[in-house]
Protein backbone atom coordinates (compact mmCIF):
# COMPACT_ATOMS: atom_id res chain seq x y z
CA UNK A 1 0.00 0.00 0.00
CA UNK A 2 2.68 2.41 1.07
CA UNK A 3 4.85 1.32 -1.79
CA UNK A 4 2.24 2.13 -4.45
CA UNK A 5 1.65 5.46 -2.76
CA UNK A 6 5.30 6.41 -3.01
CA UNK A 7 5.55 5.14 -6.56
CA UNK A 8 2.50 7.13 -7.58
CA UNK A 9 3.74 10.28 -5.85
CA UNK A 10 7.09 9.94 -7.56
CA UNK A 11 5.44 9.32 -10.91
CA UNK A 12 3.07 12.26 -10.53
CA UNK A 13 5.83 14.64 -9.48
CA UNK A 14 8.01 13.38 -12.30
CA UNK A 15 5.31 14.09 -14.86
CA UNK A 16 4.62 17.40 -13.17
CA UNK A 17 8.25 18.48 -13.36
CA UNK A 18 8.59 17.32 -16.93
CA UNK A 19 5.53 19.21 -18.08
CA UNK A 20 6.43 22.36 -16.23
CA UNK A 21 9.95 22.35 -17.60
CA UNK A 22 8.71 21.77 -21.13
CA UNK A 23 6.10 24.47 -20.81
CA UNK A 24 8.68 26.79 -19.30
CA UNK A 25 10.94 26.29 -22.28
CA UNK A 26 8.13 26.66 -24.80
CA UNK A 27 6.78 29.77 -23.11
CA UNK A 28 10.27 31.22 -22.91
CA UNK A 29 10.59 30.62 -26.59
CA UNK A 30 7.31 32.39 -27.24
CA UNK A 31 8.64 35.58 -25.76
CA UNK A 32 11.80 35.59 -27.77
CA UNK A 33 10.44 33.81 -30.81
CA UNK A 34 8.11 34.77 -33.58
CA UNK A 35 4.40 35.36 -32.93
CA UNK A 36 1.85 32.95 -34.30
CA UNK A 37 0.56 35.29 -37.05
CA UNK A 38 4.06 35.81 -38.25
CA UNK A 39 4.46 32.06 -38.61
CA UNK A 40 1.40 31.90 -40.83
CA UNK A 41 2.66 34.84 -42.87
CA UNK A 42 6.03 33.23 -43.29
CA UNK A 43 4.40 29.92 -44.16
CA UNK A 44 2.40 31.47 -46.98
CA UNK A 45 5.50 33.30 -48.13
CA UNK A 46 7.43 30.06 -48.06
CA UNK A 47 4.74 28.36 -50.12
CA UNK A 48 4.85 31.18 -52.63
CA UNK A 49 8.62 31.00 -52.84
CA UNK A 50 8.47 27.26 -53.28
CA UNK A 51 6.05 27.72 -56.16
CA UNK A 52 8.34 30.33 -57.64
CA UNK A 53 11.29 28.03 -57.17
CA UNK A 54 9.51 25.26 -59.03
CA UNK A 55 8.71 27.65 -61.85
CA UNK A 56 12.30 28.80 -62.01
CA UNK A 57 13.47 25.21 -62.08
CA UNK A 58 11.23 24.57 -65.06
CA UNK A 59 12.57 27.68 -66.74
CA UNK A 60 16.13 26.65 -66.00
CA UNK A 61 15.67 23.23 -67.54
CA UNK A 62 14.06 24.90 -70.56
CA UNK A 63 17.04 27.20 -70.98
CA UNK A 64 19.47 24.35 -70.51
CA UNK A 65 17.72 22.51 -73.29
CA UNK A 66 18.09 25.57 -75.50
CA UNK A 67 21.77 25.82 -74.64
CA UNK A 68 22.23 22.17 -75.49
CA UNK A 69 20.48 22.72 -78.79
CA UNK A 70 22.67 25.73 -79.50
CA UNK A 71 25.74 23.66 -78.64
CA UNK A 72 24.59 21.03 -81.05
CA UNK A 73 24.03 23.71 -83.71
CA UNK A 74 27.47 25.21 -83.30
CA UNK A 75 29.45 22.65 -85.32
CA UNK A 76 26.94 23.13 -88.13
CA UNK A 77 27.41 26.89 -87.98
CA UNK A 78 31.19 26.62 -88.01
CA UNK A 79 30.92 24.17 -90.89
CA UNK A 80 28.82 26.74 -92.76
CA UNK A 81 31.42 29.43 -92.07
CA UNK A 82 34.15 27.08 -93.24
CA UNK A 83 32.24 26.27 -96.43
CA UNK A 84 31.77 29.97 -97.03
CA UNK A 85 35.47 30.54 -96.53
CA UNK A 86 36.33 27.84 -99.04
CA UNK A 87 33.96 29.38 -101.57
CA UNK A 88 35.36 32.86 -101.04
CA UNK A 89 38.91 31.59 -101.38
CA UNK A 90 37.97 29.96 -104.66
CA UNK A 91 36.39 33.18 -105.89
CA UNK A 92 39.44 35.17 -104.84
CA UNK A 93 41.76 32.81 -106.69
CA UNK A 94 43.65 31.62 -103.65
CA UNK A 95 43.19 27.94 -104.46
CA UNK A 96 44.27 25.63 -107.23
CA UNK A 97 41.24 24.79 -109.34
CA UNK A 98 40.52 21.88 -111.60
CA UNK A 99 37.83 21.47 -114.19
CA UNK A 100 36.94 21.28 -117.89
CA UNK A 101 37.80 24.18 -120.15
CA UNK A 102 39.93 25.34 -123.04
CA UNK A 103 43.54 26.03 -123.64
CA UNK A 104 44.33 28.87 -126.02
CA UNK A 105 47.81 29.03 -127.48
CA UNK A 106 49.00 32.22 -129.08
CA UNK A 107 52.26 32.56 -130.94
CA UNK A 108 53.55 34.76 -133.67
CA UNK A 109 53.57 32.95 -136.99
CA UNK A 110 57.06 31.96 -137.80
CA UNK A 111 57.54 32.23 -141.45
CA UNK A 112 59.58 34.16 -143.89
CA UNK A 113 58.34 37.71 -144.04
CA UNK A 114 56.70 38.46 -147.35
CA UNK A 115 56.06 41.73 -149.01
CA UNK A 116 53.16 43.49 -147.31
CA UNK A 117 52.96 41.21 -144.24
CA UNK A 118 52.01 42.67 -140.95
CA UNK A 119 54.89 42.04 -138.60
CA UNK A 120 52.76 41.64 -135.53
CA UNK A 121 53.84 39.83 -132.47
CA UNK A 122 51.40 38.90 -129.72
CA UNK A 123 50.77 42.05 -127.76
CA UNK A 124 49.34 42.63 -124.31
CA UNK A 125 46.11 43.81 -125.89
CA UNK A 126 45.69 40.48 -127.66
CA UNK A 127 45.93 38.66 -124.37
CA UNK A 128 43.55 41.15 -122.78
CA UNK A 129 41.06 40.58 -125.56
CA UNK A 130 41.33 36.83 -125.20
CA UNK A 131 40.83 37.07 -121.46
CA UNK A 132 37.92 39.45 -121.93
CA UNK A 133 36.30 37.14 -124.47
CA UNK A 134 36.77 34.10 -122.24
CA UNK A 135 35.23 35.91 -119.30
CA UNK A 136 32.30 36.95 -121.45
CA UNK A 137 31.83 33.30 -122.36
CA UNK A 138 31.59 32.28 -118.75
CA UNK A 139 35.12 31.39 -117.75
CA UNK A 140 35.33 30.80 -114.03
CA UNK A 141 39.09 30.76 -113.60
CA UNK A 142 41.85 32.03 -115.84
CA UNK A 143 45.60 31.73 -116.00
CA UNK A 144 48.20 32.83 -118.52
CA UNK A 145 51.52 30.97 -118.51
CA UNK A 146 50.98 29.90 -114.94
CA UNK A 147 49.91 33.34 -113.71
CA UNK A 148 46.46 33.27 -112.23
CA UNK A 149 44.25 36.14 -113.33
CA UNK A 150 42.42 37.64 -110.35
CA UNK A 151 40.55 40.86 -109.83
CA UNK A 152 43.71 42.92 -109.31
CA UNK A 153 45.80 41.24 -112.03
CA UNK A 154 47.23 43.45 -114.72
CA UNK A 155 48.25 42.46 -118.27
CA UNK A 156 50.50 45.04 -119.82
CA UNK A 157 53.49 45.54 -121.95
CA UNK A 158 56.68 46.33 -120.09
CA UNK A 159 59.48 46.94 -122.51
CA UNK A 160 59.38 44.10 -125.00
CA UNK A 161 57.78 41.66 -122.57
CA UNK A 162 54.35 41.24 -121.08
CA UNK A 163 53.92 41.46 -117.31
CA UNK A 164 51.13 39.67 -115.52
CA UNK A 165 50.88 40.01 -111.74
CA UNK A 166 54.17 41.95 -112.00
CA UNK A 167 55.76 38.80 -113.38
CA UNK A 168 57.37 38.70 -116.79
CA UNK A 169 56.05 36.07 -119.17
CA UNK A 170 57.34 35.17 -122.55
CA UNK A 171 55.88 33.61 -125.70
CA UNK A 172 54.41 31.24 -126.58
CA UNK A 173 51.44 32.26 -124.52
CA UNK A 174 49.05 29.70 -123.20
CA UNK A 175 45.76 30.87 -121.76
CA UNK A 176 43.91 28.37 -119.57
CA UNK A 177 40.26 28.84 -118.77
CA UNK A 178 37.90 26.70 -116.75
CA UNK A 179 34.29 26.82 -117.77
CA UNK A 180 31.93 25.22 -120.27
CA UNK A 181 34.44 24.12 -122.91
CA UNK A 182 31.93 24.38 -125.76
CA UNK A 183 30.83 27.88 -124.81
CA UNK A 184 34.35 29.11 -124.38
CA UNK A 185 35.48 27.65 -127.67
CA UNK A 186 32.53 28.97 -129.64
CA UNK A 187 32.94 32.39 -128.07
CA UNK A 188 36.47 32.54 -129.40
CA UNK A 189 35.97 30.87 -132.75
CA UNK A 190 32.84 32.71 -133.79
CA UNK A 191 32.96 33.87 -137.41
CA UNK A 192 34.44 37.33 -137.59
CA UNK A 193 35.30 37.06 -133.93
CA UNK A 194 38.48 37.46 -131.98
CA UNK A 195 40.42 34.47 -133.28
CA UNK A 196 39.61 35.33 -136.89
CA UNK A 197 40.80 38.86 -136.38
CA UNK A 198 43.99 37.83 -134.67
CA UNK A 199 44.76 35.28 -137.34
CA UNK A 200 44.36 38.05 -139.87
CA UNK A 201 46.89 40.03 -137.90
CA UNK A 202 49.35 37.22 -138.17
CA UNK A 203 49.02 35.52 -134.82
CA UNK A 204 48.79 31.77 -134.69
CA UNK A 205 45.87 30.92 -132.40
CA UNK A 206 44.92 27.38 -131.45
CA UNK A 207 41.98 26.60 -129.23
CA UNK A 208 41.82 23.10 -127.70
CA UNK A 209 39.04 21.82 -125.53
CA UNK A 210 40.27 19.95 -122.46
CA UNK A 211 38.12 17.69 -120.34
CA UNK A 212 40.24 18.55 -117.33
CA UNK A 213 42.82 21.17 -116.66
CA UNK A 214 44.43 22.55 -113.55
CA UNK A 215 44.72 26.27 -112.90
CA UNK A 216 47.31 27.31 -110.34
CA UNK A 217 46.57 29.48 -107.34
CA UNK A 218 47.47 33.14 -107.17
CA UNK A 219 50.81 33.08 -105.44
CA UNK A 220 51.48 36.72 -104.73
CA UNK A 221 50.58 38.85 -101.80
CA UNK A 222 47.26 40.68 -101.86
CA UNK A 223 47.43 43.89 -99.91
CA UNK A 224 44.51 46.28 -99.95
CA UNK A 225 45.93 49.47 -98.52
CA UNK A 226 43.31 52.02 -99.46
CA UNK A 227 40.11 50.10 -99.96
CA UNK A 228 38.14 49.62 -96.77
CA UNK A 229 34.75 47.98 -96.45
CA UNK A 230 31.92 50.33 -95.54
CA UNK A 231 30.28 49.48 -92.25
CA UNK A 232 26.74 50.26 -93.41
CA UNK A 233 27.30 48.31 -96.59
CA UNK A 234 27.74 45.06 -94.68
Amino acid at each position, binding site marked *: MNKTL*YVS*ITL*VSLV*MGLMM*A*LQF*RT*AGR*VDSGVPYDRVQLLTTELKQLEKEYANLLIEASDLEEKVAKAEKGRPEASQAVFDELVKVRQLAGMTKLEGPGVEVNLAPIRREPEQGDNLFTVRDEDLLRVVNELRASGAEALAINGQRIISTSEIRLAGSFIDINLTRISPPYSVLAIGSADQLESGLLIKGGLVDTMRDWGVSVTVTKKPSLVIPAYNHRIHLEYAKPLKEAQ
Partner: protein
Amino acid sequence: MWIGVLLALLGLALGALVGLNVPLVLPQAYAQYLGLGVLAALDSVFGGIRAAMENHYDNHIFITGFFSNILLAAGLAYIGTKLGVPLSTAAVVAFGVRLFQNLAIIRRHLLKK
Protein backbone atom coordinates in the same frame (compact mmCIF):
# COMPACT_ATOMS: atom_id res chain seq x y z
CA MET B 1 5.07 11.38 5.40
CA TRP B 2 8.52 12.91 4.98
CA ILE B 3 9.58 10.16 2.63
CA GLY B 4 6.62 11.09 0.41
CA VAL B 5 7.63 14.76 0.36
CA LEU B 6 11.22 13.79 -0.38
CA LEU B 7 10.17 11.49 -3.19
CA ALA B 8 7.93 14.21 -4.59
CA LEU B 9 10.75 16.74 -4.60
CA LEU B 10 13.12 14.18 -6.13
CA GLY B 11 10.66 13.33 -8.89
CA LEU B 12 10.02 17.00 -9.55
CA ALA B 13 13.73 17.75 -9.84
CA LEU B 14 14.32 14.74 -12.09
CA GLY B 15 11.40 15.65 -14.34
CA ALA B 16 12.52 19.26 -14.56
CA LEU B 17 16.05 18.12 -15.40
CA VAL B 18 14.82 15.84 -18.16
CA GLY B 19 12.37 18.45 -19.46
CA LEU B 20 15.01 21.14 -19.62
CA ASN B 21 17.51 18.92 -21.38
CA VAL B 22 15.53 16.97 -23.96
CA PRO B 23 16.38 18.25 -27.43
CA LEU B 24 12.78 18.27 -28.67
CA VAL B 25 10.72 21.41 -28.29
CA LEU B 26 6.95 21.44 -28.47
CA PRO B 27 5.55 23.28 -31.49
CA GLN B 28 4.21 26.64 -30.54
CA ALA B 29 0.67 25.80 -31.66
CA TYR B 30 0.47 23.15 -28.91
CA ALA B 31 2.01 25.27 -26.17
CA GLN B 32 -1.34 26.48 -24.87
CA TYR B 33 -2.63 22.92 -24.47
CA LEU B 34 0.42 21.91 -22.50
CA GLY B 35 -0.06 25.01 -20.41
CA LEU B 36 -3.62 23.95 -19.62
CA GLY B 37 -2.33 20.48 -18.83
CA VAL B 38 0.13 21.95 -16.36
CA LEU B 39 -2.65 23.97 -14.77
CA ALA B 40 -4.85 20.89 -14.41
CA ALA B 41 -1.93 18.92 -12.95
CA LEU B 42 -1.24 21.66 -10.42
CA ASP B 43 -4.89 21.68 -9.45
CA SER B 44 -4.84 17.90 -8.95
CA VAL B 45 -1.67 18.05 -6.88
CA PHE B 46 -3.01 20.74 -4.57
CA GLY B 47 -6.29 18.84 -4.36
CA GLY B 48 -4.28 15.77 -3.32
CA ILE B 49 -2.35 17.72 -0.68
CA ARG B 50 -5.59 19.14 0.70
CA ALA B 51 -7.13 15.64 0.82
CA ALA B 52 -4.06 14.33 2.61
CA MET B 53 -4.38 17.10 5.18
CA GLU B 54 -8.08 16.31 5.66
CA ASN B 55 -7.10 12.66 6.02
CA HIS B 56 -9.28 11.29 3.26
CA TYR B 57 -6.60 10.93 0.64
CA ASP B 58 -7.24 8.11 -1.87
CA ASN B 59 -4.34 7.14 -4.03
CA HIS B 60 -6.49 5.80 -6.91
CA ILE B 61 -8.64 8.89 -7.07
CA PHE B 62 -5.54 11.08 -6.98
CA ILE B 63 -3.74 9.20 -9.77
CA THR B 64 -6.76 8.91 -12.07
CA GLY B 65 -7.77 12.49 -11.36
CA PHE B 66 -4.26 13.74 -12.11
CA PHE B 67 -3.95 12.15 -15.52
CA SER B 68 -7.59 12.47 -16.60
CA ASN B 69 -7.59 16.17 -15.65
CA ILE B 70 -4.48 16.79 -17.73
CA LEU B 71 -5.83 14.94 -20.75
CA LEU B 72 -9.33 16.40 -20.44
CA ALA B 73 -8.09 19.95 -20.06
CA ALA B 74 -5.79 19.71 -23.04
CA GLY B 75 -8.28 17.69 -25.10
CA LEU B 76 -11.22 19.98 -24.40
CA ALA B 77 -9.15 23.05 -25.22
CA TYR B 78 -8.09 21.39 -28.46
CA ILE B 79 -11.68 20.48 -29.39
CA GLY B 80 -12.76 24.00 -28.44
CA THR B 81 -10.19 25.48 -30.79
CA LYS B 82 -11.38 23.19 -33.57
CA LEU B 83 -15.02 24.14 -32.93
CA GLY B 84 -14.25 27.81 -32.59
CA VAL B 85 -15.37 27.95 -28.95
CA PRO B 86 -12.71 29.17 -26.50
CA LEU B 87 -13.08 26.25 -24.07
CA SER B 88 -9.53 26.87 -22.89
CA THR B 89 -10.79 29.98 -21.11
CA ALA B 90 -13.41 27.92 -19.27
CA ALA B 91 -10.75 25.41 -18.25
CA VAL B 92 -8.43 28.16 -17.06
CA VAL B 93 -11.20 29.77 -15.00
CA ALA B 94 -12.43 26.48 -13.52
CA PHE B 95 -8.97 25.13 -12.65
CA GLY B 96 -7.80 28.53 -11.47
CA VAL B 97 -10.72 28.96 -9.07
CA ARG B 98 -10.27 25.45 -7.66
CA LEU B 99 -6.55 25.95 -7.39
CA PHE B 100 -6.96 29.05 -5.26
CA GLN B 101 -9.67 27.43 -3.16
CA ASN B 102 -7.45 24.44 -2.47
CA LEU B 103 -4.54 26.72 -1.66
CA ALA B 104 -6.70 28.67 0.79
CA ILE B 105 -7.86 25.49 2.51
CA ILE B 106 -4.29 24.18 2.71
CA ARG B 107 -3.19 27.48 4.20
CA ARG B 108 -5.93 27.24 6.85
CA HIS B 109 -5.00 23.66 7.72
CA LEU B 110 -1.36 24.69 8.04
CA LEU B 111 -2.35 27.65 10.29
CA LYS B 112 -4.60 25.43 12.47
CA LYS B 113 -1.72 23.15 13.33
